[in-house]
């Protein structure tokens, strides 16, 4: 195990630091709003000559992802960063990146989509792209964002799939935390060198990238993507283990917290897992058998782990920081229910939509969710927003 250095950084700067240590061949990013400090900080490293990266400050996020596709097809190690509406503008090319099987890494910050205009934390942006064919990893804090950034490169290149790893906007991206960073050489050794199998720039072996794919082979290429996603959990676990050997911080697809003997549990992604752990500890102190299942990977969805972890619970509350309008719940809820159903679980599940547009989610609200699932005997419908329901409630007296 190598000795890390303890630093105080916000999540955005922690990821920029990881990018400096990884020294990618190409970073293409849109340099203006809605961009984050990840790109601002990294472009300073470029200007200061601290990396060899070719930094392409493109005219839009559509162009950013397109430049990434070109550079990755050429055979480079390629990264980008964006958030919110920036990802929305990348939309078309996100699919091209995944379907062309290019191991691009996107350092992401979750923020709300317009309208009304809002810049704060919300998972609607990356959740909208959940079916684009990318691997999605979530972080609970700045340390995990830093660690995920480094592991993403290995995961992407082993799966030949692009990886988006994300952190909660402002809560993590702008909150200064204490974290450990690795020595530069350790990062370099961990990610190793990348040699593309079929680089477009290898003129001795000419290839064609992105040809027309009519009904005779389109399905076959989609089937290959399914196969790659099915193999991804193994890779994510293996890389997470190896990272654990290096740093003492081991990663998998999920992180159960006091879950083994729990009767009720919360399922959540991102920074709210931290808040929920505090509540679980408090409830445990009062003798309540409460537990938590934090999801690190959302794509591929760790259905088997979720089913095994939750199947003997009486009730679970699934927390979603995004809406699926007209759907039967948020994306985390729908996936969790499907995993429970297919895994033969009997746990009752209830969905809470929380923290939209950066609204604070407090330990009180999490505790109330636990109270409600403790009371569940028949499937019920939760208020759309705990805070909203509070506002509408008659105050006693």
């Amino acid at each position, binding site marked *: 195990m190598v000795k890390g250095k303890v630093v105080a950084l916000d999540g955005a700067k922690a990821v920029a630091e990881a990018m400096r240590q990884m020294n990618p061949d190409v970073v293409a990013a849109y340099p203006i709003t809605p961009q984050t400090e990840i790109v601002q900080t990294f472009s300073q490293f470029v200007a200061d000559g601290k990396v060899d990266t070719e930094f392409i400050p493109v005219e839009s996020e559509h162009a950013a992802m397109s430049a990434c596709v070109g550079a990755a097809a050429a055979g480079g190690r390629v990264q980008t960063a964006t958030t919110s509406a920036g990802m929305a503008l990348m939309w078309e090319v996100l699919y091209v990146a995944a379907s*062309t099987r290019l191991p691009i890494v996107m350092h992401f910050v979750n923020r709300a989509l317009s309208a009304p205009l809002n810049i704060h934390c919300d998972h609607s942006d990356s959740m909208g792209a959940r079916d684009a064919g990318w691997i999605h990893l979530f972080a609970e804090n700045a340390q995990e964002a830093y660690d995920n950034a480094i592991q993403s490169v290995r995961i992407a290149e082993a799966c030949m799939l692009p990886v988006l790893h994300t952190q909660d906007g402002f809560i993590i991206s702008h909150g200064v935390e204490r974290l450990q960073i690795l020595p530069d050489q350790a990062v370099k050794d961990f990610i190793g060198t990348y040699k593309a199998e079929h680089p477009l720039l290898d003129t001795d072996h000419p*290839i*064609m*990238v992105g040809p027309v794919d009519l009904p*005779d*082979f389109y399905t*076959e*290429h989609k089937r*290959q993507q399914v196969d790659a996603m099915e193999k991804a959990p193994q890779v994510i676990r293996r890389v997470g283990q190896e990272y654990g050997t290096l740093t003492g911080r081991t990663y998998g697809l999920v992180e159960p917290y006091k879950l083994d003997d729990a009767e009720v549990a919360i399922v959540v992604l991102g920074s709210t897992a931290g808040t929920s752990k505090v509540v679980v500890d408090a409830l445990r102190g009062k003798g309540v058998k409460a537990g938590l299942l934090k999801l690190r990977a959302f794509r591929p969805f760790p259905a088997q782990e979720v089913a095994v972890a939750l199947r003997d619970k009486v009730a679970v509350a699934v927390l979603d920081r995004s809406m699926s309008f007209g759907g039967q719940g948020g994306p985390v809820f729908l996936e969790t229910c499907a995993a429970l159903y297919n895994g033969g679980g009997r746990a009752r599940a209830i969905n809470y939509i929380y923290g939209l547009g950066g609204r604070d989610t407090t330990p009180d609200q999490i505790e109330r969710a636990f109270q409600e699932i403790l009371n569940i005997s028949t499937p019920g419908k939760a208020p759309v927003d705990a805070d909203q329901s509070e506002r509408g409630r008659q105050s006693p007296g």
Partner: protein
Amino acid sequence: MAKQPGWKDIPIGGLILEGGTAVKYETGSWRSNRPVLDKNKCTNCMLCWVFCPDSAIVVRESKMLGYDLEHCKGCGICARECPVKAITMVEETKFREGSNG
């Protein structure tokens, strides 16, 4: 018909692992207008060869010889760009029906 290769048999990402394969895909049937060359006007300036998006201008020894009609899509760019108006676009039906119109 020979059995098509399955998903395990083909390169990932839609790659084609050789160059120059566009020639195998015949786009000539898409054409509704056919370029016709007036050899008397042509100065062999090669502008049509530069502009043709389908590499369908046949050139040998610096001479513009005509068109590769298996690949010419009939876009009309060559006719538009020819500085001496040596190329005319003629409706494809005129050739197919053998009409004199």
